[in-house]
């Protein structure tokens, strides 16, 4: 009775949006945000899986995703700060050029 | 420790000694190199004597697990070519006495290593040893051209290396194919040529194996479409380099055809005869035409050697004793005559710092002896009787004529074009009004005279007594070309001429 199939479709859609965000936006923060979206979508799929099979394992796995996402954001943003300090911008294309000098 | 290993070891040790003597002054290095090459000539002459009694063999196991044996063998053909290598080695050392100023030690090391590679190629009867020698030749030549070359030496050195290396890849594939076929048929793994000749391959297999070998050797000879590396390599190589390149490296290609391609795949050889003959004849004409249009002395001589090598390959393609002897003779003569022309080009460049015909003209009054030598070698390269080239060309044309009259006729006219460019070499440099650009050119000193003199004497001796080269050969035709003989019907039919009795060479040497 759980809408698990639909949840899986939803996670697919969310994941696609995350990927598009990652490719399209040129700002580093948006890249980090898109990673968050993708992680979240993956988590949703896990939970949908556990709903389908009735085992808790799916949900356990989501619990693991949370710390990973947290750690990832922590370091990501720290790096973003340092990059911003050095390159005065967060535009990935500009950073690529600056990095080369 | 028979004479064969000595022949390979002497130049290698010479190279080592030169490297060690590098610290001392240049002349000791040159002395060591000269000593090594002179010893090498002595050994080579000893080999010629020894071979008269029958082929010398020296065989040790090298890598038994894979079947590679250290198998050196010398019959008539190999002995002559080794002698040619030795002689050209001496001349090369003599001639680069004053030309090579910087890094003299490494120059001689590379040159002697090159000679080792060449001798190894001529003596090896084991496919892998042959291939080892084949690759060993490439590297020193690359450095000789690349380091001591002239203007754009890098381009030519790389071009030379890539061309030959690509060719040798095809060759390796073909050889390995035969190796595995042999292993499949007999269960034992062996790289020895004698064994591999026993593999029975279907005609189509043979065709492909011969194609692989032919491409590898055609690049080296060079035959028509694959020849563009030669003019560049020659113009940029130092004198000794282009002398060895013209005198010896081109012969390794032809020798490879004779020693490995023809015996290993007889049907392949007979199937390829029309292509080989066609390319050879076209090469003769094409080389001559292109030579005439050149403005650079060495480039002209390089194209002329394409034309001469066309004769050699035609001699092979014709397949009868006359063609065969003509091919071997022409190889030796080309080494001497074109070697001489390159020496003179080097001497001229040393004096005038240029090779282009526009700058030359009217030099005969200033350098009469060099002019005399140039006249002799120009005439030798166009095949004046009295020099060996005439005999070589006569045998090849005679062989082609007896095979198919129109082939002989067409090749005959190739000789006319040879005359046109050879005379041009002499006229453009020596004749004409007194040269304004060069004033005080000094004539050749005793050392250069001896180098050129050796070549002149050898050419005249071969010209008047060609049996010095062809008698040791009496072993070769029977062993080497039985395959063509054994299958004379298809060859003759291929050629459209009535099958001849004399076609089968193996019956008796004099039959045809």
């Amino acid at each position, binding site marked *: 009775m759980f809408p698990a199939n639909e949840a899986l479709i939803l996670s697919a859609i969310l994941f696609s949006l995350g990927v598009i965000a*990652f*490719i*399209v936006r*040129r700002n580093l923060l948006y890249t980090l945000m898109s990673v968050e979206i993708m992680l979240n979508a993956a988590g949703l799929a896990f939970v949908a899986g556990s709903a389908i099979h009735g085992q808790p394992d799916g949900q356990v796995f989501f619990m693991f995703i949370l710390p990973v996402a947290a750690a990832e954001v922590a370091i990501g943003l720290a790096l973003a700060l340092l990059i911003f300090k050095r390159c005065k911008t967060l535009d*990935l294309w500009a950073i*690529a*050029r600056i990095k080369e000098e | 420790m028979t004479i064969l290993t000595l022949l390979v070891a002497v130049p290698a040790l010479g190279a080592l000694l030169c490297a060690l003597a590098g610290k001392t002054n240049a002349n000791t290095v040159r002395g060591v190199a000269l000593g090594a090459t002179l010893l090498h000539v002595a050994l080579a002459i000893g080999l010629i004597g020894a071979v008269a009694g029958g082929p010398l063999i020296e065989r040790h196991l090298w890598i038994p697990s894979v079947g590679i044996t250290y198998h050196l063998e010398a019959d008539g053909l190999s002995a002559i070519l080794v002698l040619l290598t030795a002689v050209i080695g001496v001349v090369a050392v003599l001639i680069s006495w004053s030309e090579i100023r910087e890094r003299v030690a490494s120059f001689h090391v590379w040159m002697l290593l090159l000679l080792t590679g060449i001798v190894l190629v001529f003596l090896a009867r084991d496919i892998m040893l042959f291939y080892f020698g084949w690759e060993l030749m490439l590297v020193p030549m690359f450095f000789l051209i690349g380091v001591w070359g002239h203007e754009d030496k890098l381009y030519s050195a790389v*071009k030379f290396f890539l*061309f030959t290396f690509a060719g040798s890849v095809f060759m390796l594939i073909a050889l390995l194919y035969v190796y595995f076929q042999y292993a499949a048929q007999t269960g034992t793994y062996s790289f020895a040529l004698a064994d591999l000749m026993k593999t029975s391959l279907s005609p189509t297999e043979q065709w492909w194996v011969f194609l692989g070998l032919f491409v590898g050797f055609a690049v080296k000879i060079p035959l028509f*479409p694959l020849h*563009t590396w030669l*003019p560049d390599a020659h113009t940029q190589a130092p004198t000794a380099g282009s002398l060895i390149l013209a005198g010896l490296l081109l012969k390794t290609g032809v020798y490879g055809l004779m020693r490995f391609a023809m015996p290993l795949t007889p049907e392949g050889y007979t199937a390829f005869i029309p292509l080989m003959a066609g390319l050879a004849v076209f090469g003769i004409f*094409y080389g001559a*035409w*292109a*030579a*005439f*249009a050149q403005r650079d002395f060495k480039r002209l001589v390089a*194209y002329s050697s394409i034309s001469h090598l066309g004769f050699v390959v035609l001699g092979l393609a014709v397949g*009868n*004793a*006359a063609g065969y002897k*003509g091919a071997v003779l022409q190889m030796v003569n080309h080494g001497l005559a074109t070697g001489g022309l390159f020496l003179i080009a080097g001497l001229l460049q040393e004096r005038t710092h240029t090779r282009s015909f526009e700058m030359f003209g009217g030099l*005969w009054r200033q350098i009469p002896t060099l002019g*005399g030598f140039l*006249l002799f070698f120009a*005439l030798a390269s166009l095949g*004046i*009787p*009295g020099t060996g080239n*005439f*005999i070589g060309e*006569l*045998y090849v*044309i*005679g062989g082609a*004529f*007896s*095979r198919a*009259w129109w082939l*002989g*006729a067409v090749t*005959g006219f190739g*000789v*006319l074009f040879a*005359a046109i460019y050879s*005379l041009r070499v002499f*006229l453009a440099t020596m*004749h*004409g*009004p007194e040269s304004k650009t060069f004033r005080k050119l000094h004539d050749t000193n005793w050392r250069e005279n001896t180098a050129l003199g050796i070549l002149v004497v050898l050419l005249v001796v071969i010209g*008047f*007594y*060609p049996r010095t080269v*062809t008698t040791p050969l009496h072993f070769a035709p029977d062993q080497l070309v039985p395959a063509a003989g054994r299958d004379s019907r298809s060859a003759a039919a291929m050629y459209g*001429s*009535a099958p001849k009795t004399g076609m089968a060479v193996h019956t008796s040497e*004099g*039959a*045809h």
Partner: protein
Amino acid sequence: MTDNGVPALWLVPALPAAGALIIFLFSKFWNPRVAGRIACSAVGLSFLWVLVCSYMLITWPGEAPRFTQKLWTWLDAGTITADVGFLFDQVTLVFTLVVTGVGFIIHLYSVAYMRGDDGERRFFGYMNLFVAAMLVLVMADNAFFMFLGWEGVGCCSFFLIGHFYQKQENCAAATKAFLVTRLGDIFLLLGVLLCAKLAGVSFLDLSGFEKVAGMDSVPQAFGASGPLLLTIAGLLLLGGAMGKSAQLPLQTWLPDAMAGPTPVSALIHAATMVTAGVYLIARFHVLYVMAPVALAAVAMVGVGTAFYAATCALVQTDIKRILAYSTISQIGYMILGLGVGAFSLGLFHFFTHAFYKALLFLAAGTVIHALHGEQNIYKMGGLKASLRGTYLVFLCGAAALAGLPLTAGFFSKDAILWYSLSTKYGNPALFALGMVTALLTAIYTFRLIFVVFHGTERSHHHVHEPEPLLVKPLAVLAFFALFAGFLNLPHFVPVLSAKWEHFLEPVFGHYHAHPAGYGGKAGEALAALLSTVVSLAGLFIAWKLYHPGAAVVPVPAMEIGESETSTPAPYKASLANWLYRGWDFDRAYDAAFVRPFRRLSGMSSWVDRVIIDGVFELSAAIVRGVHSLLLAFQNGRLSRYALVMLFGALAGTIILFFGRGW
């Protein structure tokens, strides 16, 4: 002396060869005169030894004596077997006598003529080498060894024509001579190879050709019938003869070869080398008798060339070019003689011609030497007084050349003309054309005499009597020019007639084309009378046109003195200019062969640079292209990497999704 009493034949060519070697190696350490002395003594000794051999040959008991001597085997590859062997029979005797005898005289003459020239040592070295090569040519016992002499002679003519190499046109003339003769040599080589396959090429035994003529098909490679093959071989050998003896299609080089010093023209381009073709055809007479078509071709080439050269000689302004065209014409006669089967008479004409043509050339040389290098006949004149000795000698030579009665030229030319009418190979057309050419010959010879020696003094040089060495040797030649004819008096002469033919009987005996018609002695006498009338008429016409007071005919385009030999059109009349330029063969050959070859060679080096290298450069370009393509994916932008990864994922899923179906 060898064991069986045969004299050491190899000594004859060895002496001049040794002389040449000594001169080349050591003469630069001595003063130039020594080179001249070595050269003369070498040729002189060789001449003496030839005399000894001839004496032994003539006095040799036995029916058809000939000496043979084999030194070592030279070639041994299947059909191409030949050894370094010498043959000395009657024909060789004649040729060696001429080569060494006339050669010796010319060497004496050139000691004086070339004194002071900076290339004197080189000149004598090459002259000796030439004599050695010519002796090898005539004394070889097989065609391959003869070919060695054949090309050696061609190569020496290249050296000697290009003696004054400072001037560019001399080098061009030398190269032209060498290349045209070499073209002929190729035909000869192919002909010799064909003969080698058919019946062997040793001159000792030519019977093989008879057997081949009988066979309807020759088994070896060709499958063609015997006679056809013999004809082809004959034509090929004729091609070789044409090249070396400057016959019709390949004659353009001889007039330009006059760029060489005069003794060279005398020795090489008059007496010896140019007659090599005659020797070749004489040696292969068995082949030609067996191939009548080839023989007819020989006759036609001979008479055609004779007529062509005679017309050209009429209008030349350079004294040496007149003699050059005259030489071509006279060799045409010899070839005509061979062509009608009168082999021994062809050689007789060679024998007499060698003397009087060498004489004319040397006398012309003396004239040029006296006038300090002036060669244009219209700038000479009235030299009769100042160069009396030379004039007398020149007159004897001219008389012989024109064929005035009782001179050597008369007997030899008349015999050839008679045989061209009476033998079974001859026909009236040949005889008629021969007679017309004889008339033209007389005209241009005496034109030369009158313009150069008679009339008013036109040259501004002070003419002084040349030194004795430039005139004395000429006297010997003059003697032979006048009296050599008596060696072969016509048959109608009762006493000692046709000595020459009997002498050469052993060599040409059974093949001598007995004149079928043989209109008997009366016919021969009539023909002799006719040729005397013709030569006298020629003298008369020449006198009418060119006597001292007459205007210059044909009318010159520019002021008479200025026409240098190089200007292509010295006359007003276009026909005269056309004849002057040798029927424009040069322009035709230049357009047909030289220019296309230059373009062809330019094109082939272009093909090499652009097309073949292009292909390999292309492969390099492909590699560079792929490299830049891949570079696009590494441009550092994160989003590009993500896109690629996405694409990868997509491809993966598609393959998996549809993969299941495979």
